[in-house]
Each structure stands twice: as structure tokens, then as C-alpha cells.
């Protein structure tokens, strides 16, 4: 019988490229996600990484990709199956019911979904994880950080205010009529017409800024912890990013993590990977029974004249 217990994973991540985890735009400039913090000098707005984004990028997506890879499901899933694995599914059936047998099967086959929660068309179940928000290491957050981080992890000296770690980016989308006019069908154009060049810019958190974040797994088994660690490892291995514009090199994080209580992480990850292999056929059959198997390609019939 597995032992259920609470695990805490505390992480400190340093930005190795600008972070553009945005909350929207003002005019034609993007604004980074910020939260209000009460300080002795009043309310200050400080950049933050949302727990929702952290949970998706660091756990759900790499964890789901691992399952797809191990079970050979690439190109073999219906949209609803993908929605379940990559976005937690949707409760969209009118006949909601709580079948304990289904739930037990679900948890056994998918420790990933047991960790982060999800919904079948008529059954919704919460996960066992709390993903903390990424709190910036800055002067405004100093009091909060001292309650979360071991004393030996806190940087020495004074912390910088958040606005010192804020920066800007600017890019230009070029106009092909001007950069490669020779390749156009007619050389027209380009110089006579109005340029399609666009400059876009916005706020970012500068490289070198650090964030404290983490996870708490409540009433979790070692298999659940193995699943979480494997997902985090895959995220890191694949140049883990957070926020937008990763294609331009934004959002790279370098992470340091500590698990409490201490555990043999390699063994836990191995055990989870072995579990995934052992339930492969059953899990695929279960996914097909819940969301439907991919349809056979239609045979081409004779077209009547």
C-alpha cells in the first residue's frame, strides 16, 4: 500500500533571457503581468508569474507530451482527448455523474491528472497540487520572501526595487517588398507603395531577475511526486520557458529546486516511467472509451456522374 503524504517543492528561477509573461496591452505596447503588493510605503505593482501558467508550462504540458510519446499516440488522438490531456478537459455533458469506479481507474492510469486535476465530459475532479505564483525577488516582496525561503537562500545585502528589473523590448516586422524586392513577380511596387513595416514593443522583466515559486502536493503518493519531478525535468531539458515570445528567445528560466521531505528523485522518476509503460494498453483503451477512438478514414466511393 502506498503512503500518502504532503510534499513541498521550493524553486528559485533566474531569468536568462527577457521575460514577457504578459497580461495584455495598452495601445500597441504589451504590459507584463503584475500584482499589487502592500508595502510599508503603500501599494506597489510588481511583476509576477501566474501559478496557472507555471502549472501548465512546467507540469501539464511536458507531462502530457511524455504520455503521448511513450504510448505512441502522436497523430492518433481526437481533439477531445487532447483537450483532456493538455488542458484538463471540459465538463460539457448534461448528465453529470460521479462514478467512483471511473475515478479509481482514472487515478490509477493517470497520476498526471491526479496531480493537476481535470474533467471528463461528465465528471470533474480537482488535483492535489498547489502551484505557487512566481514571486519576484525584489525589495517590495522582501517580507513575503523571508517567510517562504530558507535564510541561506536569501541574497545578501539590499534587494533591488522591482522597477530596476523592468525593461523594454522592441522588434520590427519587415516588409518583404523592401527587403527582397528582387524576388517579387513585378518589381513594382515596392518603393511606390506604403511600407508594411511594423514596429512593436512592450515591457519585459530583464534577464537576471529571479523568481521564487514552488508546488505543494497534498496527500500524494511517491508515484505522484515522480510524475511531477519527471515533468519538471522534461521542462528544464527542453529549454524551459515561461510567458510569450519563446520563439524569439524570451522567457528562459534556470531553475533550482528543493524537495521536502527529501526523496530519491531518480528512483521516483524511474518508478513513474515504469508505471506509465505498465498501463499503456489499458490507458489507451480507457482514453478511447471515454473520448472515442479515432475514426477510420472514409473509403472513397464511386462518384456518380
Amino acid at each position, binding site marked *: *500500500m502506498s503512503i500518502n503524504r504532503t510534499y513541498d517543492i521550493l524553486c528559485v528561477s533566474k531569468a536568462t533571457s527577457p521575460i514577457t509573461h504578459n497580461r495584455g496591452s495598452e495601445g500597441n505596447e504589451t504590459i507584463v503581468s503584475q500584482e499589487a503588493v502592500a508595502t510599508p510605503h503603500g501599494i506597489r505593482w510588481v511583476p509576477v508569474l501566474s501559478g496557472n501558467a507555471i502549472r501548465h508550462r512546467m507540469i501539464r504540458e511536458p507531462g502530457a507530451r511524455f504520455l503521448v510519446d511513450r504510448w505512441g*499516440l502522436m497523430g492518433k488522438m*481526437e481533439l477531445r482527448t487532447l483537450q483532456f490531456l493538455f488542458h484538463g478537459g*471540459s465538463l*460539457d455533458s448534461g448528465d453529470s455523474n460521479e462514478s467512483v469506479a471511473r475515478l479509481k481507474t482514472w487515478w490509477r492510469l493517470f497520476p498526471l491528472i491526479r496531480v493537476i486535476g481535470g474533467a471528463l465530459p461528465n465528471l470533474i475532479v480537482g488535483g492535489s497540487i498547489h502551484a505557487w505564483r512566481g514571486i519576484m525577488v525584489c525589495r517590495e516582496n522582501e517580507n513575503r520572501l523571508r*517567510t517562504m525561503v530558507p535564510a541561506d537562500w536569501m541574497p545578501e545585502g539590499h534587494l533591488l526595487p522591482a522597477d530596476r528589473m523592468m525593461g523594454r523590448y522592441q522588434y520590427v516586422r519587415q516588409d518583404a517588398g523592401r527587403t527582397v524586392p528582387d524576388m517579387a513577380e513585378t518589381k513594382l511596387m515596392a518603393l511606390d507603395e506604403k511600407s508594411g513595416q511594423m514596429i512593436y514593443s512592450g515591457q519585459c522583466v530583464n534577464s537576471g531577475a529571479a523568481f521564487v*515559486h514552488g508546488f505543494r502536493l*497534498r496527500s500524494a503518493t511517491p508515484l505522484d511526486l515522480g510524475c511531477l519531478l519527471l515533468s519538471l525535468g522534461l521542462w528544464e531539458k527542453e529549454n524551459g520557458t515561461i510567458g510569450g515570445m519563446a520563439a524569439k528567445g524570451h522567457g528562459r528560466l534556470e531553475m533550482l529546486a528543493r524537495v521536502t521531505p527529501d526523496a530519491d528523485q531518480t528512483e521516483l522518476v524511474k518508478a513513474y516511467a515504469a508505471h506509465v509503460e505498465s498501463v499503456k494498453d489499458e490507458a489507451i483503451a480507457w482514453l478511447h472509451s471515454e473520448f472515442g477512438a479515432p475514426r477510420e478514414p472514409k473509403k472513397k466511393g464511386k462518384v456518380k456522374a
Partner: protein
Amino acid sequence: MSTPLKVTAWLAAPLVGDPPHLDALCEWVVSQYAVSIERTLSGSGDPLRHQEIADCPHRSQRAPRCGAMPIPIDRVKLSDDVIVSRCSSPLFRTDYEYVDHFAMRIDAGNVGPLMAETGPQTIQHGSTATKAMFRPLRVRVVERVVWFCVAHGSQSGGTKRSPQGCLRKVLREIAGLGKKVAYGYGRVAKWEVEPFHADWSWFAPSDAGPVLMRALPRRLIELPERLQGYRESFGAVAPPYWHPERYMEIVEPC
């Protein structure tokens, strides 16, 4: 021996929704222990049995017996089926309030290569199971949440535990308050349990007269004269506070 206590949750993240009642928090934690003990003893692994013990019935099921779950907070029996804990409602000051959003959108570029070529090839972002969302959250910046209560210690075997110790042991399992704790909102940085000079669990003194500190049943209790800060309403006075069976005529702080 029972002791008046002041319990403070220092928050490390903004709060979404409202903080819960202290007795409800304690009952939830104890119920998790109860499930674990039951599972160990019976080895049944039956989630239905666990749900029954865990004191968290479905809306359509009967509410559990009032006061069935042992918690370190004192309770007062007002009638056969109404037992009220000696703890105040949560008290907090909002320093700032704003609206945040949480979003979900299935991205064709991301999942497209994984999709079977024989199924639907169009992702509906406006409806169906793949409907995208961008939902608002009312977020409040709250430094701390305070409850006043009267708690008792415990003795098992040769080990004695003080009321503060008992409450601390239970509360350390609570990592977040309010809604969307899975996203990191309402994170508790530190629990503080300290002795308090008086019992402010139901009523607190003021110059104008006693102030109501928690919801109490209107018909089962005689309200003190010159009572301040209350209104008559319809609601629950014991966990689970959301359960329709718990609803009755009450007076609640306002």
C-alpha cells in the same frame, strides 16, 4: 483546559474569494487524517467510504452530523442538531482590490501535430469542449486574516499537547485560503497562534455595546442588549457552511 486564542494567517499572495471559517478549515484537515487512518486500518481503498468520513458530501447527500469531526476548537450545543464552534468569522482588511484574469485556450499549432487526421480538423474557440476562456477574478490584497477562538488541548498516551500546539498541528496542513489556491492565490506564508486575553469568539466588546463576531442561530440564542454590527439573514452556523441542510435563520456580522 480551554484557552482563548488569536489565530493569524499571514498571506504571501493576493486573496481570491473569501477566507473560510476556522472550524471548517479544522474539520477539513481532521477529515483528511480520518481518511488516512481508515485506509490504513481497513485497507479498503474505497473512495465512497472515504468521502463519507471526509465529511464532504455531495450537495444531494445528507449533511454529516453536526460536530462529528473532532477539532481542537470548543463547541457549544444549542440544540440536538445545532452545535456552534467558539470561533469568530474571519477578520481581514483589504488594502487594495483589482481584477485579474485566468485564461485557457487550446492552441492549434501546439496540438495540431498530435491530432488524428480522421477526426474534426477545426478547433472551435467559441463553443463546445474546446471553448477558450478568459475569466475575471476579483483579487484582494490582504496582509493577514485573523480569527478569535477558544481551543482545548489534548492528551494521548503520555503526551500532552497545549491548545496552541493542537491548533498549530492542524493548521500547518492548510497552505492556501480562498479560491484558486491551485494557481497560488491566497497562499499562507505563516500561521501564528497566540494566547489572547479574552474570549472574542462570539462577541467582542466595544464602547457602543458588544459586537457580533460570527453567525449564530437567531432562534436558539438570546442576543445581548445593545448588540452592534449584525443583520438577520438565512445561512449556516456550522460546517459544511455551504450545505443547504445547514441553513436556518441566523444573525451574522455585517
